[in-house]
């Protein structure tokens, strides 16, 4: 091993004089201590990064053949998957990848709820993450419009019209977003530019800031304690282990498992029963024919269900916006001393569990037509959703202030 390094000694020294490579590795990898008690919920950050890279790479290749424009977009997608070698695989990778990206992101966010990862000193980390989430939603929405299938068209129609409910500026805003009196060439082309150029840059920048913020405060853990408070004789946290090699190797296993699941879906059920690639989008955009059920893709449906639950369009839109904004206040709504749910009382666990169930129910309801029974359920779940944020300050203060554990719980694995 050392002989190899010595052989590189010349080049390595040359490189390090000009760029702090070894320093970086020592600081960020072998010298960065992460809590040793990470569990399965801690895979999703690195998986999110993997999906970001995958979407960029597949997106680059899809863009080589996609022709933005209301007359050419739909055809260009069909021709590319049928006529360009291997695009039958790469284009679905991009479409399925978008859904997997959101699965990973939602699980990544869920971890924060379970272990209080949004609490001080990680509020800014959480806020940057929320900005990434918002940017990702915009990116996915615009990406879905690009193929200009019938659901692309009508989904865009519905979502853009929501902006019309803003008092005063609404209708003008809608026209400004569209660039035309209806959804068409202008809208498609600007969405293309934003989706391919602007938003990927913004998301990449936000991800970099997210990682810098994480590095600054260090990672939280399932026991919710700050490992930096207990240092060993070597000056390193006694409950911490170097990120490299322990978490680099563990994350590689996570990547392998995740890619296996991704491959199973991509190769065998890419439409995932119409959830990942919706049937109406296999027809070109038709301004005079709406699909039977207009629904956004599954990752937007919780908020769509909240929008539809309210009989008044304006208030529904407001409530929908609030439901997303509510996440931003989480670090300050949560008043418990114990970050992790493990050490909070039964009430806190029930409250969080109810929120998760309500969120998943809303996701399911948003996919369904607005039948009377579903509307009633959506209203109940919307109430439960907001109840979580309203009750959190009280419940967290009531049973989240028990004794904070001294050390992490770790079982060898």
């Amino acid at each position, binding site marked *: 091993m050392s002989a190899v390094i010595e052989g590189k000694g010349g080049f390595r020294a040359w490189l390090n004089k000009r760029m702090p490579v070894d320093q970086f590795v020592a600081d960020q990898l072998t010298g960065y201590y992460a809590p040793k008690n990470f569990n399965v919920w801690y895979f999703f950050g690195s998986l999110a990064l993997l999906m970001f890279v995958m979407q960029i*790479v597949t997106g680059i290749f899809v863009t080589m053949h996609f022709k933005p424009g209301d007359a050419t977009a739909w055809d260009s997608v069909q021709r590319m998957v049928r006529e360009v070698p291997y695009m039958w695989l790469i284009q679905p990778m991009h479409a399925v990848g978008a859904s997997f990206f959101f699965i990973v992101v939602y699980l990544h966010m869920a971890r924060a709820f379970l272990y209080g990862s949004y609490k001080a000193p990680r509020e800014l980390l959480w806020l940057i993450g929320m900005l990434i989430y918002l940017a990702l939603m915009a990116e996915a929405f615009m990406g879905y419009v690009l193929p200009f299938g019938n659901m692309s068209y009508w989904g865009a129609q519905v979502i853009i019209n929501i902006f019309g409910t803003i008092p005063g500026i609404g209708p003008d805003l809608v026209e400004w977003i569209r660039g035309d009196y209806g959804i068409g060439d202008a809208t498609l082309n600007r969405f293309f530019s934003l989706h391919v150029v602007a938003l990927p840059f913004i998301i990449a920048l936000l991800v970099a800031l997210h990682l810098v913020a994480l590095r600054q405060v260090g990672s939280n853990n399932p026991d919710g304690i700050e490992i930096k408070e207990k240092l060993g004789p070597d000056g390193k946290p006694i409950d911490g282990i170097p990120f490299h090699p322990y978490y680099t190797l563990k994350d590689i296993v996570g990547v392998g498992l995740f890619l296996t699941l991704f491959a199973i879906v991509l190769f065998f059920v890419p439409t995932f029963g119409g959830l990942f690639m919706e049937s109406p989008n296999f027809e070109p955009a038709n301004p005079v024919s709406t699909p039977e059920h207009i629904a956004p893709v599954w990752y937007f449906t919780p908020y769509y269900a909240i929008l539809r639950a309210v009989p008044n369009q304006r208030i529904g839109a407001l409530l929908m916006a609030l439901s997303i904004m509510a996440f931003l206040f989480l670090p300050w709504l949560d008043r418990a001393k114990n970050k992790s749910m493990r050490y909070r009382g039964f009430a806190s666990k029930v409250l969080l569990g109810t929120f998760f169930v309500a969120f998943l129910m809303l996701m399911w309801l948003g996919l369904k037509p607005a039948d009377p029974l579903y509307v009633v359920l959506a209203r109940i779940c919307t109430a439960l959703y907001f109840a979580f944020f309203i009750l959190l300050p009280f419940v967290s203060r009531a049973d989240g202030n028990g004794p904070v554990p001294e050390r992490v719980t770790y079982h060898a694995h």
Partner: protein
Amino acid sequence: MSDHAADAAVPEVDESRRKFLIAATAGTGAVGAVLTAVPFLASWNPSESARAAGLPTEIDLSKMEPGQMTTHFWRKKQIYVVKRTPEMLASLTSHDGELKDPKSEESDQPAYARNEARSLRPDVLVLIGTCTHLGCLPKTRFTPGDATVMANWPGGFFCPCHGSKFDLAGRVFEGSPASVNLVVPPYSFEGDNKLIIGVDPAAQKGAA
């Protein structure tokens, strides 16, 4: 509870097992990465649309006058088709000494065009109209004796970009920046008057 067994005996680190597993993981990962790159790189190959557009081009020779040249497109390349007169053919024998590659040994043409006339049939010349120097379109200078090209000009092509000169079989003259003769594409005839660019003679139809 958890195992904070910091005081327990630390087992020996099996370095060789670790090295083996690192190699196995890295090796498999590298193979996977290469295999993953294959579809992406392969997507750059010509698509079915490109291949459909690159099908052989058929040209009707019956309307061509002797001494006339027509231009066509095949696989995004300009093709020159010349109906050569007997005089044009006669002019090919007189200047072998002034040519860089009179026998077309270094140049690019199908086997059936590796003759003095560089063609399957002497009366029809088929060339790719791209100068073998840096790719400009050579202009026709079919009139023999045209002193503006050079002394004792037998007739042929002149490239305006850097002055390369070619005879009526596309062979390059000494003194030209180009070093090889103009390229002859694959072609064949169907009957007397149909020229098919892109298919060799006696090959399967549609195989080029």
